[in-house]
């Protein structure tokens, strides 16, 4: 997942974009490399709710959607800001700005590793 997980060099693993509990398969198209934080927060979710419009929407799919269209970094690069309905819902659903993620990103910003160059 093109967020801090992509460069966290901790433990990556594949997660199912559509969870197996909801019929997701092990096909490559349904797998994405993410760190354990994103993995655990995603759980069995496939949809989230946009806090601005209240609309329920499918979560960001890194295989078919462009990160920079849906997200951007905060001024200090420590937080991910959702730009679209899908982006905002995904930030909330996956808790992309949980305190551990933000503190880890701040460490990386301090030594110039962050934010990553993302298409």
């Amino acid at each position, binding site marked *: 997942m093109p967020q801090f997980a992509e*460069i*966290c*060099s*901790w*433990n990556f*693993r594949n*997660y*199912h974009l559509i*969870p*197996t*509990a*909801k019929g*997701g398969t092990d096909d490559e198209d349904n797998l994405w490399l993410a*760190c*354990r*934080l994103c*993995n*655990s927060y995603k*759980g*069995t979710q496939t949809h989230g709710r946009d806090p601005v419009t209240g609309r329920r929407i499918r979560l960001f799919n890194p295989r078919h959607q462009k990160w920079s269209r849906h997200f951007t970094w905060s001024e200090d690069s420590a937080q991910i800001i959702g730009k679209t309905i899908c982006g905002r819902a995904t930030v909330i659903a996956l808790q992309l700005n*949980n*305190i*551990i993620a933000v*503190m*880890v990103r701040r*460490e*990386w910003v*301090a*030594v*110039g*590793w*962050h*934010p*990553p*160059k993302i298409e």
Partner: protein
Amino acid sequence: MSTQVTLTLPDEVYRRAERLAQLSSRDVADVLVDTIELSLSPLGLQSEAIKPVSALSDEEVMALAQLQMEPEQDQSLSRLLDRQQAGTLTETQRSELLALMQVYEEGLLQKAQAMSEAVRRGLMEPLEA
């Protein structure tokens, strides 16, 4: 038991807390206590003192920068995350997953701190972002 502290908040943070307090008819202080408690919930309560990374020797910093989860814990975490995705976690397994995620999160943070300290000390080459 509780400890009283005095915090200086950015105006915008205070305004958000104040709005939430008004919405929920509560004191701003109570809203802030809840917010802090909830955001710190990923962290455990282990009481052993942790030396600041800046006080560690070069060897200790490098060891921490290369930190990985114990293989057994790593495998358990993978297995539990798979079960979570499959929607088959039992209550006991859910608690086990939470405990392992605490270990993971604390390790992730310590590793990031150690890696940036290692770069500051010239022990590691900066990586390309």
